[in-house]
């Protein structure tokens, strides 16, 4: 006895799929960006260890800003899951 899938289920399934794709692709950018920020910070600390505190703080701020696009895709994914 074939259970036919109505329109609402398809919309729900598509929303969940979209949320997954949004998060998946959204994780790519911040990963790359934060890696570059951390790498440059390590080089700078290597060159000038006395400034390690300031460099670490600046790195954290830079990483948080680089992370924002990933957070936007997280917000989109949350909207798709909870609102659609």
């Amino acid at each position, binding site marked *: 006895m074939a259970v036919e899938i109505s329109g609402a289920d398809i919309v729900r399934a598509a929303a969940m799929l979209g949320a997954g794709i949004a998060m998946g692709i959204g994780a790519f950018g911040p990963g790359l960006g934060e890696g570059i920020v951390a790498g440059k910070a390590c080089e700078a600390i290597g060159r000038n260890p006395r400034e390690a505190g300031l460099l670490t703080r600046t790195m954290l701020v830079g990483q948080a800003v680089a992370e924002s696009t990933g957070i936007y895709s997280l*917000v989109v994914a949350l909207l798709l899951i909870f609102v659609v």
Partner: protein
Amino acid sequence: MENIGKVSHWVFHLGDTRLVVNSTTLMMTWVVIGLVLAFALIATRGRAMVPGPWQQLAEFLVQWFRELVRDALGEAYEERYFTLICGMFIFLLLCNWVGVLPGLEEPTKDINTTLGLGIMGFIIAHGTAIKVKGLKQYLKEYFEPMFFLMPLNVVGEVAKVISISFRLFGNIIGGSIIIVVVTHLVYGLLLPPFLYGFFGLFVGTVQAFVFTMLTLVYISVQIR
């Protein structure tokens, strides 16, 4: 686990208009305001040349942010914007940390709080720009590099508000959802303190600092 998507509302009927208010956020904001006032009172109550722990903490915050604001805005405007920046940081810090206490939730988990703070920063930055540079110069700057770039500049300014608000909102609500879901999966064993430590304390502190620093930078960009 099941009440992640639920939001409790208070509905006020003003004549024919319905005013719907998010009750959790309001109550938690009052709790955070109380905590900030308590911190202020405790820190400044027993003022002495040999500072107690709370006074030391308060002095550290004040001196650090006075230094940051002086670097960003210069001597002239330091006095005017220092209290805004330091107050915003302490409020946001306690907002993000209050979720760690059992039974309490972060007010910044609600887009209204962060968007409200973002719009406040936007108005302050642009109000200062108009006061400092005068309306004509302020408007002329939107046509700066080339005259047809005006829409781009306008959208760029609005995008700053959206990005700063959604960054704080997304980080905090994402962290709290991850905490709830993983705690549910692990049946509350072993992991929750580390989750709260990372998402509640560390990410909360970094995001509060980033929000405050970016607001300060947006003001300083407008002033110079």
